[in-house]
């Protein structure tokens, strides 16, 4: 459940697209990305609250991941500006964005398979002088920092329950463990904001709960979390604020309990089945699935 402080801070924020937040860490204006004739992202204004967990949801092709890539420097916008902690990130390459404290993970996990878990972790750390070609040749210049990094890495591995895999190749971990490793590795640089692209995709249900716990722990440690997700349970469970995208635009914002009832969301996101709550557990039962399937079939036959 969301902590009170984040919820209280967002309590008076109007439930409308582009709403101003009391303490925004990211502010984006007129961010547009076109692929040929198609406009994938067209965000007029959005603010993301510091210290909160914000979910970015929307139907397939809504431009969530593209917007994510733009914010983190992995893609260049056709136009637009955005700031992170008051400084513009526009035109900054991905590596510089990460060094400023905005670190991301990927929808398709990018664990470095043929490196061990601990090496993966060490790579995540910043300011290691041994990463310079010439300093690298003189181990005394970087050994002290390496010890610090290793210590920090081992603490994180314990926290993410990966410590007994310390010396295994990352490629030998399960999908869920790789997600955990990727998240832990992102934390090595002590970021102020963590961007998670579908953290639940491909994760074994047994690990879901612990992953949720870890994400909440990030916020409790003072980090800001923005995540893209399809899993409505997860969105309801842990987010403090939800931003809904459809066809490249932001169509609604609000707390997770009420945003699903927003007519714009119902129209854009839920289509014909707007009277069913996507966060409703019952939706996942076989009966409902069958009933929906039958309805779809009936609709198709009508055509």
């Amino acid at each position, binding site marked *: 459940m969301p902590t009170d402080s984040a919820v209280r801070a967002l309590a008076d924020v109007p439930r409308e697209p582009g709403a101003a937040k009391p303490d925004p860490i990211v502010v984006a204006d007129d961010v547009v990305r076109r692929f040929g004739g198609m406009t994938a992202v067209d965000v007029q204004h959005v603010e993301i609250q510091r210290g909160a967990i914000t979910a970015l949801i929307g139907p397939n092709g809504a431009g969530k991941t593209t917007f994510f890539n733009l914010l*983190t420097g*992995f893609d260049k916008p056709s136009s637009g500006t955005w700031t992170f902690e008051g400084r513009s990130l526009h035109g900054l*390459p*991905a*590596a*510089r964005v*990460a*060094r400023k404290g905005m*670190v*991301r*993970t*990927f929808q398709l996990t*990018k*664990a*470095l*398979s*043929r*490196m061990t878990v601990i*090496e993966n972790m*060490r*790579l*995540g750390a*910043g300011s*290691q002088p*041994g*990463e*310079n*070609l010439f*300093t*690298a*040749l003189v*181990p005394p210049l*970087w050994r002290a920092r*390496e010890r610090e990094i290793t210590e920090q890495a081992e603490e994180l591995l314990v926290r993410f329950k990966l410590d007994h895999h310390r010396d295994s*190749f990352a*490629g*030998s971990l399960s999908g869920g463990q790789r997600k955990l490793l*990727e998240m832990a*590795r*992102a934390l*090595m*640089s002590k970021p102020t904001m963590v961007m998670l692209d579908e953290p639940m995709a491909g994760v074994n249900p047994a690990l879901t709960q612990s992953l949720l716990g870890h994400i909440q722990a990030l916020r409790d440690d003072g980090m800001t979390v923005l995540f893209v997700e399809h899993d409505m349970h997860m969105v309801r469970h842990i987010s403090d604020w939800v931003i809904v995208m459809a066809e490249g635009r932001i169509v609604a914002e609000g707390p997770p309990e009420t945003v699903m009832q927003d007519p714009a969301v119902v129209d854009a996101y839920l289509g014909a089945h707007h009277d069913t709550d996507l966060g409703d557990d019952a939706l996942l039962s076989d009966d409902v699935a069958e009933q929906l399937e039958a309805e779809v079939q009936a609709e198709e036959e009508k055509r």
Partner: protein
Amino acid sequence: MDWTNLLVNVAGEIIAPTTAAYALAAIGLNIHFGLTGLLNMGQAGFLLLGAYGFAIATIAGWPLWAAVLAAILAAVVFALILGIPTLKLRGDYLAIVTIAAAEIVRIVGRSTTLTDLTGASSGLRGNSYKHTFQDASPFPDGTWELGPFEYAINASNSWWIRIVGWGVVALACLLIWLLMRSPWGRVLKGIREDEDAVRSLGKNVYAYKMQSLVLGGVIGAVAGIIYVLPRAVQPDAMGRSMTFFIWTILLLGGAATVFGPILGSMLFWAALMLIKLVMRGTVPETVMRSEQIEQFGWIIVGITLMLLVIFRPQGILGDKKELAINAH
């Protein structure tokens, strides 16, 4: 057939300057491919540029150290020209550009418009640029015998070039050993696995790839100097086939290992010599003439490269466990 003579010849290949030069070239390629995952298909271009740089500078009257520096500088400039446009693109582009660029170096080198500088297709005679290197030898002139091996001490295919050649190989190994264990090497390894992931961790991937390309290329250029010191600079001897020999050597010994390139080079040249000598001794002239046997040896190289990639991609010294994991 004279078996002792055959074994001496085969063993002689193991310590030959050519073997050292190829080992060094493979060490350079190991930085590109084994450590960083860059597909450099034009390593011979770096060797040829190094050879030209050294020979032309020496002929122009430069001292030894300056000529070596000229070779290194040529490799750095070449690497930058190759890297600036291609390293931001996907890996395959580098492969295409490097193979083309190495051919450009060779074709420009053998073009008649540059006859005064490069000697066109006939190249540069060894005696025109060997003197500074030979004069640098601290040993007296003459020949020296060690067991079955007898070579001149300083002249041409000498003990001196063997000592220097293998000394440089040892230094390069030490460099690789240090780098592979350093955080710098770790970033390269990460780039080999997935460069977007490394980028998301705040590392300037482009700069690291460029450093790797330059460093491996410089080692290639030094290999080129060692390669041409006992012979002449022949542009056509340093073309695509040389690049593929270097690849075979690297994959045979094991990419991403410290001693793989050395073991690969020694095995490669010794095996080639063994095949040639045994066939010359056993296959009658009517079946295969000796120059055909030479060609046959190269066919075997090609087949070996294919079999290696299919059945033992980790080479002799590589970590099988590491390669058993699919990279993605």
